[in-house]
């Protein structure tokens, strides 16, 4: 409706041209979510399995939104919405097992998360009671031994690759570190067995043997972390140090490594977190026992993951007692690993060099 009479315009059509493309109202997407839930529950009840429920929720949301977008928006926008939903679903699919796993471990593990579990071993225990003291001590000793060997070798190799390495030897080492990263953990266990079968005899099992297996797995992780962190140290720092007449090894130990230290510590802690949960190599190399063993060089030594595995496979009677111990060991393991991961992140954030 125009009030001007000097420029009469034809009656404006009811439809105006949208400057903004038409888009689905937010309420519609929420409505589709509700619809998807209904479809999912319906599919679950009808077909009686979780997969059908999940597919129901997915399609129950995807199809209405896609069709509505196709009608109201455009083909291209509809395709865009389609893929947005698919990506989000991929993320949800990945997180669901993580949540399910954490919830299950906490619920099942809580039953035996008591003082006895941390203060007694499995000597003479066939049913109720018993604990994992020997396994916790074993894990601590095996992992410490592996760390004592791996950390210096790993860091020095990283230093070699970044600061010294030139030519075919450096390229060979880089390549073999990559190869080592890919060694399956069970092969590392077999290697430890084969090595000690040759040195001592095929019956020999010990915490030290387990530590050797873990070392093979741990060194490449430490090398990679060190290498990447040292590469981040700006060359100007090294040159400034050389210009002051400082020798190369002092430059490395006093300037380069301190600058990269936070990153290296993070990498080392993550490497420890990786090997502390290893089961297969220790199953082969360190064996299994039910009592505390303080000597890593003689006699079998149980680690926490191996303990959890054996309590599940040979639970004793009644089997629930073994299953409960197994889950509690898993819970302790998850707490340790997640704790180490959080600690590593904290170090990385807290001690990283301030960006100017």
């Amino acid at each position, binding site marked *: 409706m125009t009030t001007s009479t000097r420029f009469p315009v034809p009656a404006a059509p009811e439809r105006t041209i949208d400057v903004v493309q038409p888009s689905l109202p937010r309420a519609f997407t929420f409505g589709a979510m509700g619809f998807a839930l209904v479809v999912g529950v319906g599919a679950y009840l009808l077909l009686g399995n979780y997969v059908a429920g999940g597919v129901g929720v997915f399609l129950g949301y995807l199809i209405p939104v896609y069709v509505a977008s196709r009608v109201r928006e455009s083909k291209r926008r509809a395709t865009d919405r389609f893929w947005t939903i698919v990506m989000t679903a991929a993320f949800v699919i990945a997180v669901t097992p993580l949540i399910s*796993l954490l919830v299950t471990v906490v619920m099942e593990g809580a039953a035996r998360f008591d003082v006895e579990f941390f203060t007694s071993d499995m000597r003479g225990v066939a049913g109720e009671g018993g604990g994992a003291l020997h396994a916790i001590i074993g894990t601590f000793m095996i992992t410490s031994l592996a760390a004592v060997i791996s950390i210096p070798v790993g860091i020095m190799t990283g230093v070699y690759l970044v600061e010294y390495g030139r030519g075919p030897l450096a390229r060979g080492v880089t390549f073999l570190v990559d190869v080592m990263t890919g060694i399956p953990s069970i092969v590392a266990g077999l290697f430890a067995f*084969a090595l000690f079968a040759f040195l001592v005899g095929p019956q020999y099992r010990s915490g030290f043997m387990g530590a050797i297996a873990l070392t093979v797995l741990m060194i490449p992780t430490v090398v990679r972390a060190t290498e990447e962190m040292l590469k981040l140290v700006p060359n100007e720092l090294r040159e400034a140090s050389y210009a002051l007449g400082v020798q190369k090894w002092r430059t490395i130990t006093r300037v380069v490594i301190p600058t990269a230290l936070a990153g290296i510590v993070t990498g080392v802690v993550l490497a420890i977190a990786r090997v502390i949960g290893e089961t297969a190599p220790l199953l082969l190399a360190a064996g299994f026992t039910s009592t505390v063993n303080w000597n890593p060089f003689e006699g079998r030594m149980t680690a926490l993951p191996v303990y959890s595995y054996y309590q599940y496979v040979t639970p004793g009677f009644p089997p629930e007692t073994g299953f409960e111990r197994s889950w509690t060991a*898993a819970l302790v393991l998850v707490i340790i690993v997640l704790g180490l991961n959080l600690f590593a992140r904290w170090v990385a954030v807290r001690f990283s060099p301030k960006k100017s």
Partner: protein
Amino acid sequence: MSTATASGPPRLDQKISHRADKSFATLATASGIFILVTLAFVAIFLTAESIPALTADTEELPGGNGFWAYAGPLLFGTIWASVLAMIVAVPLSIGIALFISHYAPRKLAEALGYVIDLLAAIPSVVYGLWGIAVFAPALVGFYQWLAENLSFIPFFAGPASSTGRTILTASLVLAIMILPIMTAFNRSAFLQTPRLHEEAALALGATRWEMIKMTVFPYARSSIIAGSMLGLGRALGETMAVAMVLSTSGGLVTFNLISSANPSTIAANIALQFPESSGLAINALVATGLVLFIVTFGVNFIARWIIGRRAEFSGAN
């Protein structure tokens, strides 16, 4: 350095510190060589322990039909389970990586990345427990439905396992376990897409998906392949989760996904048999381990080759 220009003989303290410089360099180089030696040892000792099994009379080995009749089905199971895991994990990891890098709110992205990394931190024995107690039972209904309705497809011939501990379940657990490394790889590749390419695509009116299709994927293709190969290497060697979840029958070669009779994998078989074996049986297990080592070595070699080739021409890293 300075000793050459200094007049007269070098002073004692200079000599000492020069020696320190030398020995530090030697120490670093020795560490590098230590790694060479370790890997050589791995190969040598595995081979040495394998030889008795490879040269033994056929009837002395487990199964009684020679080494390859023993290792063949295990190798098949290993590759089959890994391939199934890859079919699930490759598209999923691309989706997750894109969700984190291009769809999630910028502030949340890093936290979501950590969440995915947590999947990698969980020890495999815990995955095994969870697989038996929660995941496998949850899939039983689905397998029964497959066996009832889709049994004309050989993969779902059934009879459906009543425990859910099938090779499909094991492969799905494997897929979950290798997702983080592949996602991390894809994500860093997606984030390296030149910002200007992305903005140019958006400025031309492309939707987000069109922008990704035009700029991100072409740039990241070789990284996706390399990351997938690394994930495959992990899947081939994963032990405990498969050993615990999978219910096996020895020497079987079948493509049936949902029955309770499944081929075992090399790694799982070693973990299950080793503690109770002795003598030649152990040599046979070590020999299968050597086969696994060679296969994973090959897969990782190809992955690294792809990564190396990419790094050369893209100028990234």
